[in-house]
């Protein structure tokens, strides 16, 4: 039987191919912990300050284990990942954080998420500032994608040690009086620069630009790059041009350290005390503390933002439709975004609540931050939050904002004149919006 062994060989080969097909075809899904416990995954970026809340929730619900992913990460890296998970129908956490600038894009495809209105969220409306609630709502008002977490009330963070070195006042109320407007902020910057401390006055013009444009737009029509009918108005909206011109004055005065925001260099510049002020939405305090480290504790303080008011950033929590534990996830999301949850997060990492009840709570109103020389963060950020004018964000907001800020960056680095930069901003924004 000379042929027999070869049949066997053929069978082995067939089995091998089969096995290969099998292994390449499927990956096993196995997140059931076995003992009736379920694991809820929460995807975030930056610092949401939920650690203690998770513990509290897990103690009250022994059947639930909570895992957070992405803590401290960059929004630029987080959002493409989230989009891929949603597109693949797999991989996203049971709860995902969505930043306000990207909310519009996710809302355009609401089927990727659980409609929270179907799960008794309507009664929570009063727990949120009205505009924050509306941000989570689809255009037709029929679906609620996300529950608000924080808002980005504005302030100006500054280094008291560098201010003292430059012979400027260091006490926060006096500093606030130095710069009611951005023009005066620039004038202070020039004084600071003349003192030659070895540090720049501000970190990078891009963040400052974004602060100014959100302020001017909020005070004017309530929109910046897109009008409320979703037309791109970068070139015709006076609020954008006004913010651009102010930023160009800052760059022209040589006040920027040109540390590209969120880059390694930016982080190093924090550590090495290379700049004296930074535009500071409420959530930025956690970032500063993380970047500058313990050794800079007590050297930072917080003053009012020039130009007054404004909102930058803030997020929502959503439950992807692909979650295997939707009911549990919705319950947790409601807990985390409740007034008490928002207060708890604020205490840990400082994101400013989007709930009016939380904002009025003494825990917020009287809160101080030891890292920032005991600054009364609750009043500084909370004051404006309840009355602030939100800015509408259109469909390709993120892409357009990228182009405009990038144009600021090229001027800051001396690659473009302010006029060329503005042309780039307008042209590239149009191109981005058309993509």
């Amino acid at each position, binding site marked *: *039987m*000379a*042929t027999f062994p*070869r*049949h066997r*060989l*053929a069978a082995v*080969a*067939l089995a*091998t*191919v089969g096995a*290969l*097909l099998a292994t*390449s075809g499927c990956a096993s899904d196995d997140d059931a912990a076995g003992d009736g416990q379920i694991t809820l995954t929460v995807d975030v970026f930056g610092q949401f300050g939920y650690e203690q809340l998770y513990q509290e929730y897990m103690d009250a619900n022994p059947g639930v284990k909570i895992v957070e992913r992405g803590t401290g990460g*960059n929004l*630029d890296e987080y*959002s*493409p990942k989230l*989009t*891929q998970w*949603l*597109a693949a129908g797999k991989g996203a956490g049971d709860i995902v954080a969505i930043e306000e600038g990207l909310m519009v*894009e*996710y809302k*355009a*495809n609401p*089927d*990727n998420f659980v409609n929270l209105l179907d799960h008794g969220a309507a009664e929570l409306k009063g727990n949120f500032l009205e505009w924050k609630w509306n941000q989570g709502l689809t255009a037709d008002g029929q679906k609620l994608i996300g529950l608000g977490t924080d808002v980005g009330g504005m302030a100006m963070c500054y280094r008291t040690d560098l201010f003292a070195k430059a012979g400027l006042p260091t006490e926060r109320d006096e500093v606030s009086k130095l710069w009611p407007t951005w023009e005066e902020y620039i004038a202070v910057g020039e004084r600071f620069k003349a003192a030659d401390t070895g540090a720049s006055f501000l970190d990078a013009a*891009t963040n400052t630009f974004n602060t100014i444009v959100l302020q001017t737009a909020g005070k004017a029509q309530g929109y910046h790059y897109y009008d409320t009918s979703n037309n791109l108005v970068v070139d015709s909206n006076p609020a954008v041009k006004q913010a651009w011109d102010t930023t160009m004055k800052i760059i022209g005065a040589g006040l920027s350290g*040109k*540390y*590209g*925001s*969120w*880059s*390694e*260099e*930016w982080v*190093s*510049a924090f550590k*090495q005390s*290379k700049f004296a002020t930074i535009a500071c939405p409420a959530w930025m305090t956690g970032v500063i503390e993380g970047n500058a480290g313990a050794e800079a504790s007590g050297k930072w303080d917080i003053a009012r933002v020039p130009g007054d008011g404004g909102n930058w950033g803030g997020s929502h929590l959503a439950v992807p439709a692909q979650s295997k534990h939707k009911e549990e996830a919705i319950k947790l999301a409601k807990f985390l975004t409740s007034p008490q949850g928002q207060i708890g997060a604020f205490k840990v990492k400082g994101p400013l609540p989007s709930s009016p009840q939380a904002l009025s709570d003494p825990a917020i109103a009287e809160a101080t931050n030891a890292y920032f020389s005991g600054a009364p963060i609750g009043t500084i950020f909370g004051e404006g939050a309840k009355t602030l004018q939100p800015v509408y964000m259109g469909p*390709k907001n*993120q*892409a357009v904002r*990228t182009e405009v*800020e*990038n144009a600021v*960056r*090229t001027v800051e*680095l001396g*690659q473009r004149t302010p006029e060329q930069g503005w042309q780039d901003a307008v042209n590239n924004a149009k191109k*981005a919006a058309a*993509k």
Partner: protein
Amino acid sequence: MALQLDARPPTAPTPGRSRLSRAGRLSRIDAKYSPYLYIAPFFVIFAIFGAWPLAYTFWVSLHDWDLLGSNPTFIGADNYTRLLADSDFWHSVVNTLGIFLLSTVPQLLLALWLANLLNRQLRMRTGWRMAVLVPNVTSTAAVAIVFGVLFGREFGMINWLLDLVGIDGIEWKSNRFASWVAISTMVDWRWTGYNALIFLAAMQAIPRDLYEAAAIDGANRARQFWSVTVPLLKPTIIFCVIISTIGGLQLFTEPRLFHSGTNAIRGGPLRESQTMTMYMFENAFAPYYNFGYGSAVAWLLFALIAIVAAINVLIIRRLGSSARPPEAKRKGGFR
């Protein structure tokens, strides 16, 4: 081999006609089809991981396909026509080719030279040979991040060293040529040793008597290298060039992690070092999520690699024939 075996007439007669013919039939089927089964694993894997994604990407590239949207619409070659008129795309093509040339040419020359050195009688030869491969075992991401810091504008070590010798700091990340140089440096740092080892292995297969004969004819070391070593390494050089071409044109991790912070995917404020793969990512994922357009970029990248690989082969053939020993040339002339 299997066919040969079966060409033999059936040996020892087996009891029962039906069983015999059944065995015969089975053996014929076996002879005919089992070879295909043996080579099937490669083709199955290639079909799953090679052909299918290639075809699917092409299919996607013919659509207006929002990554999150549910209903992609067929738009034919629209993505391609738009792409061919997209200045940012061509900018990324130039970047890719620039970085490719800046990294591959010195890399392969250096590898050849290193291999030649390592092929000589050296003390601790094995140690040296292993040492050149060490950079290759480090993770690309780690290399890119470390180099990204070294090439920092204000806090980078390179600019600090330049400053020591009185040269003004260079904007490594926002000057187009400087960023190409920086990225090429890390590619070379990582891959030179790897190519050197491949060259070395090929060199050791060259018979020693060729060198002895050349030495008797009065050829010095350099002459031996160019007239004996290089021509005989031709297949290996072609291999290395093609592998480097594929790697070089797909460059992503190094330039992506070289930049950090907001919009790192652009490779600098004016897209100074944005490669084609980065442009593909920017369009297919954040911030555009235009999967169709990104897929079109992927297909043009595929076309570009094919073209560059063909050009490479032609150039190497030309080089190889001109570097042949004189007699060979003369013979060629008579043909």
